[in-house]
């Protein structure tokens, strides 16, 4: 498969803004056109080839080499194609994304998949805060699609998310599923505090015990069948889950009663009898 390869020449001091680097923009352009697209650093405007060595063109398959941890907005609002990072990716990766695939070999920063509505983001390292979240003031976060994180994730994971799936293998910080309105969050190593705070609807599944908010009501223990469907779809993306998790029983909590909301938190409480 042909690729357009962007190799970062040097890590920028001041963050770069690169909202043009998406398959939607790049795919139809010649090599020269891609190289001359505008990038912004502070209040100065640069060209793509000021910071990246560009190889190839005419594809919707973009590959980034080098530490792009300070390059923001790559994959913004992309609707198709593929972006692969061999190392780190910067803030707002795949924000407003509608379709396609983003894979990150290293870490990603804050606001991964902010307000995304479709597509897949798979981070092999850690993710920052506000993954799949709503931008400040906005009523809806992630509206669809899938975010998979092999490492840890920061605060406000899936804040105000409406639909879609976020799965995190590593530990997650405070306020996971804050003001959640729908969709599913899978926490494989649990989360710190205030999980599901102010949630209205949606499902948070934790394979580790959680520090619950006092505004959730404990309910029955049961084995939710739908979890097996998730196993299958996650496995298709190469995101493995322990077999026990899907055959186990879960304690169901509902809340947040302060809203009052009808969200559910399912906490794994042991293998099925």
């Amino acid at each position, binding site marked *: 498969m042909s690729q357009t390869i962007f190799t970062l020449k040097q890590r920028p001091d001041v963050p770069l803004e690169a909202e043009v680097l998406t398959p939607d923009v790049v795919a139809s352009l010649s090599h020269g056109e891609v190289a001359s697209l505008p990038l*912004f650093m502070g*209040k100065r405007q640069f060209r793509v080839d000021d910071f990246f060595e560009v190889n190839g063109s005419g594809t919707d398959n973009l590959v980034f080499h080098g530490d792009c941890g300070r390059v923001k907005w790559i994959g*913004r609002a992309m609707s198709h194609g593929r972006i692969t990072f061999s190392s780190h990716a910067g803030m707002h990766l795949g924000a407003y994304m509608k379709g396609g695939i983003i894979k990150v070999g290293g870490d990603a920063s804050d606001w991964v998949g902010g307000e995304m509505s479709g597509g897949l983001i798979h981070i092999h390292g850690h993710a920052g805060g506000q993954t799949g979240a709503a931008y*400040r003031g906005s009523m809806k976060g992630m509206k669809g699609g899938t975010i998979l994180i092999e490492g840890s994730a920061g605060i406000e994971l899936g804040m105000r998310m409406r639909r879609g799936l976020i799965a995190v293998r590593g530990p997650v910080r405070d306020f996971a599923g804050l003001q959640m309105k729908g969709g599913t969050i899978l926490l494989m190593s649990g989360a710190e505090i205030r999980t599901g705070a102010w949630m209205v609807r949606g499902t948070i599944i934790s394979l580790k015990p959680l520090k619950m908010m*006092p505004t959730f009501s404990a309910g029955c223990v049961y084995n939710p069948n739908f979890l097996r469907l998730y196993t299958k779809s996650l496995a298709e993306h190469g995101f493995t889950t322990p077999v026990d998790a899907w055959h186990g029983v879960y304690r169901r909590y509902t809340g947040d009663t302060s809203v009052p909301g009808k969200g559910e938190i399912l906490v794994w409480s042991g293998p099925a009898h």
Partner: protein
Amino acid sequence: MGGKVSCTLGEVKNRADLIVYWGGNPAECHPRHFTKYSLMPKGRFVPNGRKDRTMILVDIRETASAKAADIFLQVRPAKDFEMITVLRALIKEQPVDTKLVAETGLTLEELTDFAQRLKKAKFGVFFFGMGLSMTRGKHMNSAALLTLAAELNAFTKFVAMPMRGHGNVTGGDVIMRWTTGYPFGVNLARGYPRFNPGEYSTIDLLIRGDTDAVLVLGADPGATMPQPAIDHMVRVPTIVLDPKVTHTSKIARVHITTAVTGISAPGTAYRMDEIPLPLKPPLKSPYPTDEEVIRRIYQAVAKKPPLMPPVRPKVPRV
């Protein structure tokens, strides 16, 4: 989803019969607050002053302000968000988990009584300080209290207001809003304002080292910010405008001494309730005002060739 329900301080003076200070120590940090606005004054509808008012203090320790309070509620550190969320449930008569409630340091009975007092007030007010807004949960702690105040208006009249400090921070916030649309955390690099606290807020920019220069005006971040932020100010050219020598001016590349606003320079200060007060300087200063220095820097910069082409692409809309 909440919001912000507030009033000017005279409304508190004239009407408030329930005053709640949360995570703040006005007795020591805002010493005139009790006497001028909240607790002591005889107001139009609270003619007996202090006797007509109830004061509740919520804090993690018994500060000097507790002496002034009728009721002191000691919340465990970093449990404010849980406590406020429980109150939000209780005012709506929704269930809460008694055992987990106890982890806030307060019993369900205490919180139920508090919730009843909030609902029964004729005019209630929350004043909240940095003990709430700068501890674990930060902006969500403030959001929780603002939302509780908004929701209490289904039962009575209730408002909330941050206890802001450090000179004219409210004024900065007010003017940022009318010039950029946003109160703080604004980035103008692309030629128009963009907002994202956490990304563009000063402390985050400095800790990540995202700027290649720093201009400090009316603040002393060198005294209050975490070490990585201070290290960055040492690393890059930092320019300080201040009448006095400060922690920041000592690490700055350039310190321009300016006149003291309000003493030897005129202007406007916005009170914590956003009421503008004219500053009428009694003295003259040999030093230029902040405004004059900025104006001259701006004029000098304007003479240089522009950094941006005349037509600049905007971030596309979604």
